[in-house]
């Protein structure tokens, strides 16, 4: 495994302070754009479904991007660590919007249907569980929580690998057949989890050997 020669260095994409705020706003553009289209009947004949899937897809993309930060650093030495929190939070915001559109626009707040969905349908139970697990991660994605929780913060945030597995299966089930899109995203998410497991196991073996 390559040595972490540049691990300590943080690189910035933009020169000014508050760049993560700017990047966060950019990250929210796909949602804003589609919301504007949908509100003006420009998302085609089935707009709620299109919007719901679009938000879910971007939640997956940002989750994957957040999970890629560490492997990228280890493999190439490029550290995007300072953007990881932002990527994780974007994944959460998209997941929140995805769930909100499902509840409010798609099912129009029909509690009977919603209750049945999350108690009877594995497809929706997995997706909902993934969202629920993201909540504590989002709530503790700040400097204060990191200081306050100390080592426990790291353990808590291992939950993201559980989220990745749940999301991978939920995403596969969202289509009537297996297809290039669903399989490649699910494989990428699973790959990140496997990478983490292998990384931890090797670290343990190294420690035991020294």
């Amino acid at each position, binding site marked *: 495994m390559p040595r972490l020669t540049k691990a300590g260095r943080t690189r910035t994409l933009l020169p000014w302070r508050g760049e993560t705020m700017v990047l966060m706003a950019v990250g929210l553009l796909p949602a804003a754009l589609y919301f504007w289209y949908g509100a003006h009947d420009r998302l085609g004949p089935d707009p709620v479904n299109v919007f719901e899937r679009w938000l879910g897809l971007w939640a997956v993309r940002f989750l994957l991007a957040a999970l890629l930060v560490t492997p990228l650093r280890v493999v190439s030495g490029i550290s995007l660590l300072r953007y990881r929190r932002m990527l994780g939070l974007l994944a959460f915001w998209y997941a929140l919007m995805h769930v909100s559109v499902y509840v409010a626009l798609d099912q129009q707040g029909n509690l009977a249907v919603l209750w*049945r969905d999350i108690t009877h349908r594995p497809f929706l139970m997995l997706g909902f569980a993934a969202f629920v697990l993201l909540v504590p991660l989002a709530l503790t994605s700040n400097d204060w929580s990191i200081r306050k929780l100390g080592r426990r913060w790291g353990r808590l945030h291992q939950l993201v690998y559980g989220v990745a597995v749940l999301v991978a299966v939920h995403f596969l089930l969202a289509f009537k057949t297996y297809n290039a899109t669903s399989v490649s995203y699910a494989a990428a998410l699973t790959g990140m989890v496997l990478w983490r497991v292998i990384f931890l196991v090797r670290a343990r073996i190294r420690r035991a050997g020294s």
Partner: protein
Amino acid sequence: AEALHTRPGPFQAAEKTTALQDVTHYNNFYEFGLDKTDPSTRSGQFRPRPWTLSVEGLVAHPRVWDIDALIAAMPLEERLYRMRCVEAWSMVIPWDGFPLASLLALAEPLGSARYVAFESVVRPAEMPGQTGGLDSLAWPYVEGLRLDEAMHPLTLLAVGLYGETLPNQNGAPVRLVVPWKYGFKGIKSITRIRLVEKMPPTTWNQMNPAEYGFFANVNPDVDHPRWSQASERVIGAGGFFGGGRKKTLMFNGYGAQVAGLYGTMNLSRFY
């Protein structure tokens, strides 16, 4: 598309008709691809003529029909039908066609015939969704009906919509329309109709029997494993706030005509 000689038929739905643009650009037709827009954008190579449709199996008079001879032989009717997709969306479509029963009557099913098996076309060179790949179904697409369902006056062989011949993406040149069943029963681009004794295999049922039954009657009380079928999104209702969701009706609202076909049959078990 060419104009068809058609006249208004019975069973006209009272709901607002879905716009032609939506009927022809929001389609499930896996032979052309997985996305709703694939059929309209990727069906340009498909040649629906010349075309033959064979009626065979347990019939007294098997025959291979030329599609235009068939259209000339059958008086065409416009039928404004509700269409409910298993994915919980719906349209209202003005089909042009003739009852399947009229064609079957010419063939004279034998007493031993109990089911009708339908087979679609296989042309990978013209249908990019048939070139294999992960998302591919087993081709040809096959469907089936019980003989009494096939003989029901609501069951239509459509050769057009909105008064013109069927666009490729809607199943040119001839497709099945069974308005009290989920849309996937409406097999497109049919080449073969076979009268048989045993229940024939059907494509989606073979793919995933837990989600797609042989009967596939629209039923708000029998959920799809992944979503409720109690209501449906109305296609083309207009934007997020067009209020485009409505209750799904038993047999898609055709219960008065077809409930008798099923008697005391357990519709949760035979979904």
